[in-house]
């Protein structure tokens, strides 16, 4: 790592930035605190370049340096440095990006070697924060109209301001539409899969049909569901049921066939009944497939519940909020709603993944050798 080009780029561009104008807000000398932070970053970059350290140390150093630089640039932005005139800011941002890259790269290497969960979570988290930071800098720095792409701070404000409304939307979409639909759809898919387990004829017929239906634009049935079940949550739940049924059915059938022949023969040598074989051997072996479907269905269910609301809903619901906010060009609220939806989706997926880990800990994909 003697000639770390990334660190060299970081240091050189950061130094160059010092000599460049910052637009309306003057120059670096007018902003002592930012200058101090920026110099700290340059110092760390140079130090790491000339004295490369061990992984953890490097990752930590680069992280600290990047933080200092990020704060400096942000403060400059707040003070009015923006647009094409603030060349210093943008060159500085490039230098900062290089340093961030080195920090992430060292962090990734550290995580790979130590297999430490906190590190492996910190790296993507840091990357996410970096993306948010870039988003903020670029939208404000180049004066992107907020109807096009609002900066994260504006979205956060909108989120806080509309928390109550969004909470009600959340209840309508997630609690009343998505959950009943998910439970019924997955449950029915699983039951039908088990019931037709003994009828290979039906399996051979339903598997292709199920695969085909899974590929179809199911959301299109939303207007029909509205016609049958009315505007309220029932029609949305119905859409979710249809969307989640087939992936679950297909995966249940596949899972029930997953037990290897040898393990099946083992049960035969014990003269085990069909029910015993199903309960003790085939269902546990099917769990990985079933969880695959449960995870997939959690995303499908959320999409279904929200998009179904585009077709008509009482004046509440995440989909409703999105479509009306779009109509009023309140894009910040749209993003705030999407944030709520994204957090909901991630939490649901994460919960299922945790359950999967505890129930299928034995599967090769989970074993930490």
């Amino acid at each position: 790592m003697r000639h770390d080009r990334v660190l060299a780029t970081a240091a050189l561009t950061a130094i160059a930035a010092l000599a460049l104008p910052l637009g309306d807000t003057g120059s670096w000398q007018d902003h002592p605190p930012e200058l101090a932070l920026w110099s700290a970053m340059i110092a760390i970059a140079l130090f790491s370049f000339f004295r490369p350290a061990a992984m953890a140390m490097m990752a930590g150093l680069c992280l600290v340096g990047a933080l200092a630089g990020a704060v400096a640039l942000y403060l400059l932005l707040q003070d009015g440095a923006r647009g094409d005139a603030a060349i210093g800011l943008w060159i500085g941002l490039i230098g900062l990006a290089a340093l961030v890259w080195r920090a992430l790269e060292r962090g990734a290497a550290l995580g790979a070697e130590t297999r430490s969960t906190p590190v492996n979570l910190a790296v993507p988290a840091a990357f996410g924060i970096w993306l948010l930071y870039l988003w903020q800098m670029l939208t404000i720095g180049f004066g992107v109209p907020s109807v096009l792409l609002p900066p994260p701070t504006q979205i956060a404000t909108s989120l806080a301001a509309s928390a109550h409304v969004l909470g009600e939307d959340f209840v309508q979409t997630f609690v009343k539409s998505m959950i009943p639909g998910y439970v019924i759809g997955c449950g029915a898919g699983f039951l039908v899969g088990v019931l037709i387990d003994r009828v290979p004829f039906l399996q051979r017929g339903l598997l292709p049909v199920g695969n085909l239906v899974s590929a179809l634009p199911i959301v299109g049935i939303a207007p029909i569901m509205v016609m049958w079940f009315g505007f309220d949550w029932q029609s949305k739940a119905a859409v979710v049921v249809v969307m989640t049924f087939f992936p679950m059915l297909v995966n249940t059938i596949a899972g029930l066939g997953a037990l290897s022949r040898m393990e099946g023969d083992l049960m035969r040598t014990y003269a085990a009944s069909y029910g015993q074989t199903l309960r003790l051997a085939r269902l546990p072996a099917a769990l990985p497939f079933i969880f695959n479907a449960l995870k997939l269905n959690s995303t499908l269910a959320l999409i279904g519940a929200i998009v179904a609301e585009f077709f008509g809903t009482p004046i509440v619901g995440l989909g409703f909020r999105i479509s009306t906010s779009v109509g009023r060009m309140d894009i910040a609220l749209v993003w705030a709603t999407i944030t709520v939806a994204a957090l909901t989706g991630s939490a649901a997926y994460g919960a299922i993944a945790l359950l999967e880990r505890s129930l299928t800990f034995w599967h090769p994909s989970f074993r930490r050798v």
Partner: protein
Amino acid sequence: MTTSEPVVGGAMPLRMVARGLSQGSTLPVLTIVAALLVIWYGAAVWLNAPGAIDRFERAHRTAWTFGDLVADTMMQDRPVLPAPHQVLVELNKTIFQVSPSSRRSLVYHGWVTLSAALLGFAFGTLLGIVLATGIVHVPTLERSLLPWIIASQTIPILAIAPMIIVVLGSIGFVGTVPKAIISAYLCFFPVTIGMVKGLTSPEPLHLDLVRTYNATAAQIFWKLRWPSAIVFLFASLKVAIALAIVGAIVGELPTGAQAGLGARLLTGSYYGQTVQIWAALIVAAITAALCVAAVGLVERLTLRHMGGRP
């Protein structure tokens, strides 16, 4: 495990054909489809009956039989559930009896949607392959970017569709491109994940072998990783093309687009034209099925050319 029957000279060919059909997939699938049709007809009668009875009463018609009821449910103008033949009639009317360039033709609307979907499919696939290649060759990307790509799927992408359409519309992008962007966003994920899996699928043994030949990363990519990934790529492409069509349809919803299958769904639902809705849905389904089948065909030809198992 059961043994086959001993070979009997001149076995009855009909019985063997029947056995072949029933042990394959054709007969079971046909049976299921037939069963679905029967259920559909039954449901149509059941769901349209209240409307039919309503009409009888308003016409002061008291002497109607069950046969009359069934007949009426099969020909209502705005049925709750159109009967299969009604949908077929509508399909015939809007596909074969109308010029394909007319605005009443489902072929026209289907093409509007499909063109956006295909464009998005192309972009999304390209993006997915590029991302996957980057992730496989740059460990930093794998650890920092891949988790976010996976997390992005928990965001209901389709929910952003209205915003993308409107926002792009406000800066002058209308028509096919915004829908294509939505389709591309939906497509890139399965392609990325599938390609990452595929590009990393070569066994360690094979990788060691090419390293003993002192192959460069590019050589390893083109000679080993890419061929191994083809199978995974096609599996992802089948999922992606279906998603692209969904994306294009949903992209037509927000602004009350005038053309496209999604638009037809929307107008049908606004004006209570159930038969129109069903016809549009069927066309969407057929389009999706045909596209997936087309990808499957390309897959089979490619794999055969590469010497894969038939």
